[in-house]
């Protein structure tokens, strides 16, 4: 294995594209080093992107935020303004691993690892966030929702790296929330998860909403948010949302949970996350 630190995104992309063997990006490394340890992969080249200018920075952008791909989630948590705009996104990012893992892991890494249970991804999808991708054929922007392709797979081409995540500007009376189910209180992989982002009218009616679910399908899925749009999240709307969430679940039975459990829990979490987001949007603590 060779190790290189890239000074620019283009240099990283060029090296990754030119490597005939297996090449991997190193940002936080909290997935990469586990895979190395387990002997799951034996890369020929690892490119450390943390030295690329700006890649560890959070900057305001068009009313929203640009989160550099190598910003550790602990740094994200300490950014009061991003947290105020996108509490659900930050919540999801901060649920990954331990305090120690938080010191290293990144949202972009969580996304590019391709796990259906990634905690950072449903919040980003509900936020309708996008990513900047630098590749051999130039720079492009894509929706976060379009990156995962299935367990362990993404739509990124060889040599392409994510350099930043873009969180859009927030309309007034908007908020988001993320909940996941794990058997313990910490340190587990999500068995099911739900992120809800919504905007309210002045009278508290939901005017816009996106609901994304994790760990219940080969990749993050959107549930039909029209179930709550036009409502004030009365019981009937919440029940319809839970049902809509359950209906898009296509999970597996494994050591972490059964199909039945994951499906019913996804509905419960969608309902509860919607309520949290709703109260946040209304300014209720």
């Amino acid at each position, binding site marked *: 294995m060779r190790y290189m630190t890239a000074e620019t995104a283009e240099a990283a992309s060029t090296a990754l594209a030119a490597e005939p063997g297996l090449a991997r990006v190193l940002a936080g490394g909290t997935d990469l080093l586990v895979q190395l*340890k*387990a*002997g799951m992969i034996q890369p020929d080249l690892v490119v450390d992107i943390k030295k690329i200018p700006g890649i560890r920075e959070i900057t305001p952008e068009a009313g929203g935020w640009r989160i550099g791909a190598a910003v550790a989630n602990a740094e994200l948590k300490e950014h009061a303004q991003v947290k105020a705009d996108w509490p659900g996104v930050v919540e999801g990012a901060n649920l990954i691993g331990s305090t120690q893992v938080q010191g290293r892991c990144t949202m972009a890494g969580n996304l590019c690892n391709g796990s259906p249970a990634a905690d950072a991804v449903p919040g980003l999808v509900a936020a309708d966030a996008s990513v900047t991708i630098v590749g051999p054929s130039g720079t492009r922007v894509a929706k976060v929702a379009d990156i995962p392709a299935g367990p362990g797979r993404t739509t990124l081409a060889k040599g392409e790296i994510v350099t930043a995540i873009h969180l859009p500007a927030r309309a007034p009376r908007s908020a988001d929330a993320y909940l996941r*189910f794990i*058997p*313990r*209180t*910490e*340190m*587990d*992989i999500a*068995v099911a998860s739900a992120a809800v982002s919504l905007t309210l009218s002045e009278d508290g009616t939901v005017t816009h909403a996106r609901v994304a679910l994790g760990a219940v399908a080969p990749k993050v899925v959107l549930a039909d948010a029209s179930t709550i749009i036009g409502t004030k999240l009365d019981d009937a709307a919440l029940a319809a949302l839970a049902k809509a969430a359950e209906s898009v679940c296509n999970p597996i039975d*494994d*050591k*972490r*949970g*059964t199909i*039945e*459990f994951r499906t*019913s*829990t996804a509905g*419960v979490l969608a309902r509860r996350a919607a309520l949290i987001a709703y109260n946040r949007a209304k300014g209720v603590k």
Partner: protein
Amino acid sequence: MALDDKKSRFKYVGTTPNRPDGVDKVTGKAQYGADITAPGMLTGAILRSPHPHARIVSIDTSAAEAIPGVRAVVTGKDFAPVEDQGFADIGETCMARDKVLYDGHPVAAVAATTPAIAKAAIRAIKVEYAPLPHVTDVDEAMRPDAPVVLEGRALEHVPAGMSQNVTNTCEFGHGDVEAGFAKADLVLERSFKVAAAHQGYIEPHACMASVTSDGRADLYCCTQGHFFVRAVCSALMGMEASQLRVTASEIGGGFGGKTTVFIEPVALMLSKKSGRPVKLVMTRDEVFKASGPTVHASIDCKIGMTKDGRITAGDMTLRYSGGAWPSGTIEMGAQAGFAAYDMPAVRTIGWTALTNRPKEISYRAPGAPQAVYAVEAVIDEMCQQLGLDPLKTRLKNAAAKGTLSSYGVTFDEIGMVATLEAAQAHPHWSAPLGPNQGRGVAAGFWFNFGGNTCVTLNINTDGTASVTEGNPDIGGSRASISLMAAEELGIRYENVRTIVADTASLGYNDNTDGSRVTFAVGLATIKAARAAIKVMCERAAALWGIDAEAVDWIDGAAHPSGPNAGKFPPMTLAEIAAQSFQTGGPIAGHHEVNVDGAGVSFGVHICDVEVDPETGHTLVKRYTVVQDAGKAVHPTYVEGQMQGGAVQGIGWALNEEYIYGKDGRLQNAGFLDYRIPVASDLPKIDTVILEIPNPGHPYGVRGVGETPIVPPLAAVTNAVSRTIGKRMYQVPMSPPRILSAIKGA
């Protein structure tokens, strides 16, 4: 001299000084198994079977041997067969011979100059397997048509015609069980499943072996018993015990899991073949796959009770599997199940069957948590059905002095009633509960043991004492042993230093297990101190020119025993020690004994949980442990044992389990999915220490460490069941299982 055999007033015992290994452990200086190195040391690595059950057709190590830097390759063929069946079984868990018997079974090992080369060499070994049908569940393994794990291993009293996997059966009890059930107003029979749990110590198994060409060897390892390690390894290596010196490193947790060997014989053989020191350290997934978890169990339990809560009879069948080799744990479970109660009639029948899983090894009170869980859960359900208070009902049936126990022995002084009464009196028992919360209570029992023990106590010329003992310190025992030595000698705790010696320095010491160390090593220390005191009294007597019998040892000094003995000022230990070269030579005491007389101990746990009715997620909100310690030598460390054991039990009750796939492979060989409790999962664990002295120890000490893991499985089960209004019959109660019970599926 006059020395009271029994003591009940103490100066040092019962205080809570700092442990002698504390500074090393908070500064990173303490040396654990993987921290030991030697010049020229090689790194070992083990190749393990991916199959749960297969015949080994061939092993080709030639490619591995050809890699530069590879210095030795070992397979099962390198080990000569040994006669002792127990040692042979242990040897086979360390390295397969003809068949692999579980996912992770070692088939070959290498030693190389770097870890990377060792890894590459492992990958270069070619093994041809002929897979065989496998079985990983005890109930399936007992079916007559089940795949046979090992042939011809059934004990003589196992009935003919059963599956060859059934290797042992046992029956305990007394009285007419059927007549007892006939007297009952309610007879309830329930079936339970208990998953295998792992001890989950944070330090993986590690050792460093160095064998010389003249047949001598040194072995450093993290173990609960280096004398046992020497016995097994010398047998498997064909060495004399005297030529193998084993030194126990600091140990990073054991809980029973380090009372045997898994890698040490392999490291020794690699060192022998390479002529270099070899370090072998398990990875975490190796620890889960190939060191010993507990048995897994399937249980039917039937109890009869009158309307007012008197138990009339109990009948239980336990089926345990300790993996691919015969296991004796069933016998302890079967004896312990009903031991907390005065049973007019009781019968416990046990079965052991082989499965394609790693060889079980002890885990805190081995065999008891499973059996006691079933009994305590059925009693709780009966209390609910009959509208009885669960603590009062237990008190009505509690075993006491003179009770004929479920295992045939009549109890002496025991603390079951006092423990229940203390639980009843605790504010926790009557505290209000919130919504979606429930409270469970359960009792538990463990035997505790003594065993072979050697202690040497040297009096230093500056008036201090050095205690040499042979039991690895897993919970602060060096502190409690120093306390007992200080108590006897009458010198300050700080003036005593206790060390754990290697196998060349003392006679045989049994493992640090069975809650035996504070009890048995403590007893031997007291006797060794008394032997040294006898010498010091003789020296003082000689200097005073009086009879040794006329000297008493009081508060660290020799005193003439009365006015008739002569009028001399007391001579302190320091004064006698300072003159020891001139009065006959250095002063020491020693004691070697196979200790019996450990006192049984009882615990009662109260548990509050909150269950999320929509997901089954369960949080323990409050937890109280009440236990009889006999005498708490270092009360803070006793509390630590009670808290640690209870939390292990809570983990087992809620989340910890070995999950095998249909392919017979372990699905969760890591801390990510073998979920031991983390700090945020738990509330404060409250403790109440009772002291009902054990008649078998000069200070009344009973064992403490094991009992706390016995009650939690049922305490948490009873709390969850009462919260959700449905009874749970399986451990662990993972959220999907709780949710499915709530939904009535």
